[in-house]
């Protein structure tokens, strides 16, 4: 019986230690040199993070999100927990309005000069880049498994093909999918015209949705890689991260000719960050040409934001910067977002 009692004591002792760990972990967090990054899945290579950790002797905690909405909701609910996050343009302006961002001291960013002025010119969500530094300009496109689908038009109309029913997937992302339909109909991705939004909703509901397996912003790439679906709307980097390298030549990734919503993701420092200096160092680190080239090569991106990195890039890109010509940056539509919400609800929830 002595041993039994000992076991019980040990069990409770372990539990006590755990409780202390929880409590101490929360208190001690402020002092240590840890950079908390909240980023999209597949958006910064582990190798880049590790280089940063080694060079500055710090620890990076890296958590991920799958959509702007998810990131924003978490930050809004939990206060400023993270040091750096990567919102798209429309969310940069929302977060500025909501007072969630710290101003960025550009004098400390010696690599800011590497950023393409053409990209900076597009930052009308944050004129003069007071709060944000461009990370990457790109767009979602369509991946097609060429072994299963031989002939197709490089257009959003591929989602209307009935013979591919249940073999296609689109993102569970309101602005992306609505934007695709709006562009296909020849409207702006930022329209606030109710009739245009309704037309896009009807197009998705009547022509595209019946052929889709599901809407999924998280597992679309995995489903594509597993052969569950043959056509996937989504991000190139996610698709090629999941598909085995030996099968890359069977995948065609394109930005449809009509264009779609493009995104300009920026690095921002959140209000209440305890590591502002370190966060600035991280932002500057990303725009070192060799690091930016490493990032682009890892994901097969064209070097859209950083000019010197273009010469250092070794690998191929999944699409060219010219492919983005017909695309249009997503902007915050303010209270008119309600119109999009209603349309999207009808798509997601309705029959």
């Amino acid at each position: 019986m002595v041993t039994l009692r000992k076991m019980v004591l040990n069990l409770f002792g372990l539990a006590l230690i755990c409780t202390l760990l929880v409590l101490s972990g929360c208190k001690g967090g402020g002092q240590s040199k840890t950079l908390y990054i909240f980023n999209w899945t597949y958006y910064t290579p582990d190798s880049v993070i590790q280089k940063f950790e080694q060079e500055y002797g710090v620890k990076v905690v890296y958590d991920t999100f799958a959509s702007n909405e998810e990131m924003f909701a978490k930050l809004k609910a939990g206060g400023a927990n993270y040091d750096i996050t990567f919102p798209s343009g429309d969310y940069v302006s929302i977060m500025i309005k909501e007072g969630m961002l710290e101003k960025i001291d550009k004098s400390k960013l010696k690599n800011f000069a590497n950023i393409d002025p053409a990209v900076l010119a597009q930052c009308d969500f944050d004129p003069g880049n007071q709060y944000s530094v461009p990370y990457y300009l790109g767009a979602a496109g369509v991946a097609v498994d060429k072994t299963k689908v031989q002939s197709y038009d490089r257009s959003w109309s591929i989602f209307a093909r009935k013979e591919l029913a249940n073999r296609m997937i689109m993102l569970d992302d309101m602005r992306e999918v609505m934007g695709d339909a709006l562009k296909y109909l020849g409207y702006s991705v930022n329209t606030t015209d109710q009739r245009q939004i309704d037309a896009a909703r009807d197009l998705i509901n009547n022509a595209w949705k019946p052929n889709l397996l599901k809407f999924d912003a998280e597992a679309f790439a995995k489903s594509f890689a597993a052969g569950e679906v043959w056509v996937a709307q989504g991000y190139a980097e996610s698709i090629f991260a999941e598909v085995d390298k030996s099968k890359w030549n069977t995948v065609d990734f394109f930005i449809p000719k009509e264009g779609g919503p493009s995104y300009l993701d920026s690095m921002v420092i959140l209000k209440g960050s305890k590591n502002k200096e370190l966060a600035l160092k991280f932002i500057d680190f990303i725009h070192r040409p060799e690091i930016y080239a490493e990032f682009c090569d890892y994901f097969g991106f064209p070097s859209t934001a950083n000019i010197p990195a273009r010469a250092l890039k070794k690998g191929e890109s999944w699409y060219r910067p010219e492919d983005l010509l017909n695309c249009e940056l997503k902007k915050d539509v303010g209270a008119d977002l309600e119109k999009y919400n209603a349309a999207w609800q009808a798509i997601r929830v309705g029959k």
Partner: protein
Amino acid sequence: MRKQVGLLYTLPQILWLVVFFAAPLCIIVMYSFLKKGLYGGVELQFSLEAYTAMANPNIVLVTWRTLKISIIATVLTLLIALPCGYSIARSKNQAIRLFLVIVPFWTNFLVRIYAWIAIMGNEGFLNDILRALRLTTESVQFLYNQAAVILVLVYMYLPYAILPLFSTIDKFDFTLLDAARDLGATRFQSYVRVLLPNIKGGLVTAGLFTFVPIFGAYAVPLLIGGKDSYMLGNIIADQLTKTRNWPLASSISMTVTVLTTGLVFLIAMRKPREQKQVFDADPAFLQVAPDGKR
């Protein structure tokens, strides 16, 4: 003096639950009557918008769908769990038979969901077998529809139904069945007329333990369901994390809460005897989990 001692013992629990359970619920109630903030959060202004928004045909549709899926899954679960509980109760190796039911239940539930994806996927286990047997050439679409959601929900909550059913059936005096047969009842009649009325309490408990969590399901419809499988739990999460309509998330949460707790209390309060059974069966069933026998 003695009364105060009793209160003193319970004080930490009361405080904890008031702060971390009751207060959050009150905030939800409050939020559901406020106006939504443009970028999430709320504005301090009374509004019934969140409740009128629930009359939206889309939300009515999802409520109906959630109810339908929950009822079908619960009924199926009970139909399967009843003979199982009976079989365990009448077995000589109750402990081992219970243990077998519990082991899968102890495996992380996301792992089990993932397993079903691996089984039912287009390139999954089942389709591999079908192709190997030359029954199909193209993959059969098992996943991403309501039937798949119901199947996995039944799988997830079967143990929740089997355990309380077993513990009630185990208390049943089986000689009554023989007596009924002696009096000329068929085997089937003896089950329906004698066994079922005596284990009503267990059936109710099992039903509640299946229905309530299924009604609030989130992960299964998200991972297993397709474009037609959204349930109320998904809508709540979407309103909070995507559409940024906190009052609507709150009002739907309130509706779910009132519906489920209302159901439990309605059943529990109807007859004192049944109430005792509902509330009692619970710890008994839980104790099965850690030590494998009641």
